[in-house]
């Protein structure tokens, strides 16, 4: 009988186990950690140089760039350069993924058609140091060279750039961009190369306004007489970036600015530049 009693007790306990089992909540927090992404720059460009920032997948960036020929020193008569003439570039950059963008642009400097792609392969925070790295490669076609067939192979230039971005103060992002340009002197009879180096810093007063300083020099190979500089301000609002700056470089596409500038960076030679980009989700 004692055995029967034990069996009965076990049966009762087993029957009522669900009462307690059902009261326990099975939910558990997902173990997937939230990855911290670095935010160093919010625009895909500093001024001439690209940042490692990539727009979100599916965004089309419409780019309108201007470099005004008349020097600011010409004064009101040429509206400080805004009267033009002007070097201009129109471009479309499509973010194929969150870290890959393809851009097609055209500037009126030698009717330069520029096709490039940028791959952001690192976007992390190491300890307290944010880091973004990207590579960019492209081909430029100078489609209107006097005395040469439009499709002459000498009209094509090829380039590659490594883009390194980090932040040294909370609101100060910096970028270093070593570049290589093949056929940098496309007007010459012989092929020449150029190794260039660009640097920029951008200080954000807040998430809408910032100031940018950019510098580019030639390390080796064909070069124009001067290094180029650009300094100005960026305003971000509702999907637009507006950039107004002074510079001694009137070129717009990578195959053009990597080789330097025609004018010195001196007050009498300062030119105005203006860029506007618009993000269009597709």
């Amino acid at each position, binding site marked *: *009988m*004692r055995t*029967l*009693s034990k069996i*009965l*007790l076990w049966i*009762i306990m087993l*029957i*009522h186990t*669900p*009462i307690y089992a*059902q*009261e326990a*909540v*099975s*939910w558990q*927090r*997902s173990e997937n950690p*939230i990855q*911290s992404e670095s*935010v160093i720059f*919010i625009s895909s460009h500093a001024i001439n140089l690209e940042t490692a*920032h990539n727009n979100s997948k599916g965004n089309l960036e419409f780019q309108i760039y201007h470099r005004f020929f008349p020097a600011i020193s010409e004064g009101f008569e040429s509206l400080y350069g805004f009267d033009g003439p002007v070097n201009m570039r129109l471009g479309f950059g499509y973010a194929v993924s969150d870290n890959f963008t393809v851009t097609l642009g055209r500037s009126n400097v030698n009717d330069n058609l520029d096709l490039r792609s940028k791959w952001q392969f690192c976007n992390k925070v190491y300890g307290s140091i944010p880091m973004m790295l990207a590579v960019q490669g492209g081909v430029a076609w100078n489609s209107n060279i006097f005395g040469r067939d439009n499709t002459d192979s000498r009209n094509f230039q090829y380039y590659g750039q490594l883009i390194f971005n980090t932040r040294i103060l909370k609101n100060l992002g910096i970028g270093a961009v070593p570049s290589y340009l093949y056929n940098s002197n496309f007007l010459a009879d012989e092929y020449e190369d150029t190794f260039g180096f660009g640097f920029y810093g951008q200080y*954000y*007063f*807040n*998430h*809408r*306004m910032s100031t940018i300083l950019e510098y580019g020099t030639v390390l080796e190979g064909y070069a124009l007489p001067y290094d180029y500089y650009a300094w100005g301000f960026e305003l*971000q609002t509702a*999907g637009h970036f507006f950039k107004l700056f002074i510079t001694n470089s009137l070129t717009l596409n990578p195959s053009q600015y990597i080789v330097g500038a025609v004018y010195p960076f001196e007050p009498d030679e300062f030119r105005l530049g203006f860029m506007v980009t618009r993000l269009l989700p597709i």
Partner: protein
Amino acid sequence: MAKKLIGIIPVSIILFFCYVYASEYNVDRDQANEVKFISDAPFEDFEGITSQIDGYVFWKDERFDENIDKAASRLYFEVELATMKTGIGMRDRDMREDYLETDKYPRAVYDAKIIAIDPLGNNSYRVTAEGDFSIHGVSQPREIIATVEMEQNDFHVVSAFTVNLKDHNIKVPKLLFLRIGEVIKIELDFHLKFIK
């Protein structure tokens, strides 16, 4: 021994009739869930959006209707604040680091009980919950109302409520001389899946 048996049988009977079936629904993370933090101010209106909501609802009944034991119910939802995107990376960063301090307080949490269920027809209910809403490490008692629609065996939940940033010791962000709204509207639209 007969006395023992006489004792065991009534206990068993009582326990049998006290048998409680419980239901649990968890946030279905495979669905298109959305939590919006909306600031509506004259010069700086924006929406912070994330899909990273998680949690559960639990009650001691097989069915879901106005007759469940509300005192024994529990709902718990949390939102990963560091995943919120406003469309401007710099603003996201400022919000994470300067205002929400997500390293220290990574989640907004609502831990509550159901206090009322009002049928709306067509398998929909107006559910009122009472509990604590916590963000930035500061917890405040809150009554929150949601519309819950039963879809086959799952639930679709839609809710909205407001949060005063000062109530949770969150600095009101400034943009130069402009201020964003002190009161943030939170909108939730998410799905629960049946667990048991």
